[in-house]
């Protein structure tokens, strides 16, 4: 039994393909957003001058509120939706989608009304001693507040299109947002000479266009999400949304607070030249987020579904894949920025070399990648407290403490780019170690509940589409099920399900290779199979199939044997579940 069981094993071929398919769009999305910020700054600085740049910088808290609200609402609902889909609760997934749209609409209306009513005193407060900047700040802030709706609502297509397996459409959205912003900036600032308000309108309009595109794609027939009348009502569901949304919102908050704190410390230590250098470093750091944030972002929809299924095997494989791919990308990025450090320095008109900064930024990418992967995983897997701890530590606490210590000790200030990440990894090791000690049923590092695996009544394995491998797997699965105490009838039914479903799918895909990831489970009196596969969008149990067609005899057999058969298409792959 042991030797045969070894051959029923899961590999990463299937999930690696699905992950890489969504990775490039995520990286490109973040890159295009950063290029947008870069171009924005250049055009405003050139046309309006440093006052314009300062005004935009002072309006960061206004922009931050919109980002925090949008990310809080939508990341919370989207993560819950992906878990619901993993539990085959499609109705709940649709309700969460509808809830996120309605909440964004309501929040936008509230923010716009309150924001516009208090814009004047807010602008004065933001300017502090710089009274001369109040008109510019008021102009930019008021337009930004008017544009609250697209700026909050854009998070909906950003999250839900990725969950729908259409991450490439998110890339198009970001390109339109970035490219549109740059183009409109030029038109509004130069020919139309609209001043700072023009820059704000460029941002609002380009975001509105991108948001409209994204929502139109989500409303199309191809979309797996549709507005429905049901919205979330239960208190425990709202609590779950708030918990899942908190890391994303806190990340936005702490990143901005870090920026303000670091700017203040560097100004005090080295004056405007050091702050100017940090502006350049921060811009490059934002580009590095394309890797350190893009990698876990690409994996997050799949992680949510695996979490809903309590599929620890797939989760572990995916997290390992994130690390390997992210490590490779980080090496490539690090080589590039170190090699180009002098070029970057001259582009920003800096006298000092940026080599130390780029070197520390590069070194910090690796622990930073680990922290980012872990925080997304913990957020999704029900350990939001640890995700928030990691975010608070790396985004704010350790960054501030590291920089403070470096300045005090006369070390390079750029050391904080590396030490803050390393210190956060240490904090993570301690916190996760304590949790594991208190809850030994959980794995040491990812804190995955292993109770199902320890009962021995779940099994993950991967199968190619060769008839020989399918039939051999079918036989071994039946044997395995009998040996763990599943009845003869159910054991044979599971073996039949594997053979009938997979051979039909392989046949329908007509020679194009298809890979299957299978999870067999027998838990709490429920025995069944979940089969995930790529290839054509195909439901073996569709009522549209001709039941008299001999090709569908096997599928008909399974649908009659099983208590329930379910089909879903999620993150661009097919999922069939058979419950006996």
């Amino acid at each position, binding site marked *: 039994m042991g030797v045969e069981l070894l051959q029923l094993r899961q590999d990463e071929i299937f999930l690696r393909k699905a992950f890489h398919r969504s990775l490039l769009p995520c990286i490109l999305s973040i890159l295009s957003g950063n290029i947008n910020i870069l171009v924005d700054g250049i055009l405003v600085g050139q046309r309006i001058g440093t006052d314009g740049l300062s005004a935009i910088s002072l309006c960061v808290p206004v922009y931050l509120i919109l980002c925090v609200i949008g990310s809080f609402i939508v990341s919370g609902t989207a993560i819950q939706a992906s878990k619901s889909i993993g539990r085959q609760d499609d109705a709940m997934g649709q309700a969460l989608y509808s809830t996120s749209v309605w909440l964004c609409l309501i929040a936008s209306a509230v923010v716009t009304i309150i924001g516009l009513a208090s814009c004047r005193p807010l602008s004065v407060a933001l300017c502090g001693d710089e009274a001369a900047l109040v008109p510019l700040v008021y102009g930019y802030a008021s337009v930004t507040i008017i544009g609250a709706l697209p700026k909050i609502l854009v998070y909906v297509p950003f999250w839900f299109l990725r969950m729908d397996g259409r991450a490439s459409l998110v890339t198009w959205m970001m390109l339109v947002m970035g490219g549109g912003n740059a183009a409109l900036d030029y038109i509004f600032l130069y020919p139309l000479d609209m001043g700072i308000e023009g820059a704000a309108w460029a941002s609002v309009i380009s975001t509105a266009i991108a948001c409209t595109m994204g929502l139109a794609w989500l409303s199309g027939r191809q979309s797996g999400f549709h507005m429905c009348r049901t919205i979330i009502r239960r208190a425990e569901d709202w609590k779950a949304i708030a918990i899942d949304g908190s890391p994303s919102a806190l990340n936005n908050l702490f990143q901005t607070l870090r920026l303000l704190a670091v700017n203040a410390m560097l100004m005090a230590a080295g004056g405007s030249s050091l702050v100017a250098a940090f502006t350049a470093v921060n811009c490059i750091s934002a580009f590095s987020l394309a890797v350190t944030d893009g990698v876990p972002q690409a994996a997050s929809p799949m992680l949510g579904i695996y979490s809903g299924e309590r599929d620890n095997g797939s989760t572990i494989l995916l997290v390992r894949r994130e690390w390997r791919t992210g490590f490779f990308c980080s090496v490539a990025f690090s080589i590039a920025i170190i090699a180009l450090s002098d070029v970057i320095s001259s582009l920003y008109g800096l006298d000092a070399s940026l080599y130390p900064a780029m070197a520390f930024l590069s070194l910090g990418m690796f622990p930073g990648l680990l922290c980012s992967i872990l925080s997304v995983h913990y957020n999704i897997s029900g350990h939001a407290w640890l995700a928030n701890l990691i975010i608070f530590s790396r985004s704010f606490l350790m960054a501030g403490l590291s920089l403070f210590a470096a300045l005090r000790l006369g070390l390079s200030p750029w050391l904080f780019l590396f030490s803050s990440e390393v210190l956060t990894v240490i904090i993570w090791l301690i916190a996760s170690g304590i949790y594991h000690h208190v809850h030994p049923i959980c794995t040491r590092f990812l804190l995955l509940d292993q109770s199902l695996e320890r009962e021995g009544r779940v099994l993950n394995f991967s199968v190619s589409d060769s008839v020989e491998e399918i039939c051999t797997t*079918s*036989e071994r699965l*039946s044997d395995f099920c009998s040996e763990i105490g599943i009845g003869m009838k159910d054991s044979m039914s599971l073996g*039949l399900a594997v*053979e*009938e479903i997979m*051979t039909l799918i392989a046949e329908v895909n007509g020679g194009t290779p298809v890979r299957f990831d299978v999870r067999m489970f027998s838990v709490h009196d429920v025995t069944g199979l979940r089969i995930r596969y790529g290839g054509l969008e195909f439901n073996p149990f569709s009522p549209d199939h001709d039941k008299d067609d001999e090709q569908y005899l096997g599928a008909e*057999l399974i649908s009659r044997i099983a208590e329930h058969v379910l089909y879903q298409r999620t993150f661009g792959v097919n999922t069939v579940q058979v419950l006996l």
Partner: protein
Amino acid sequence: MTIDKKHDGSSFFLTVSGRVDTLTAPELDKAIKEGLGTSSALVIDFSDLDYISSAGLRVLLAAQKVMNRQGTMTIRNVKPAVMDVFEVTGFSSILTIE
């Protein structure tokens, strides 16, 4: 899967052991076609058959159609798990099962 073949006058006897699935069904189909000839009776013994899938059902259906023209086909000693498959698919009313 193993197949034992025996001819007795105008009857053709097959004893099938193991599994009839997508991989092994063509072998059963070939054994039936090659051995059937002009036999007027086909008897298949499933006493050692543990598993049959739709691929096997299609082979039996094809054999039944042939024997409807030239004689009789009987299936014997079907195990409960295999009988379940026949019943669920309605093959228990198409085939003669003893």
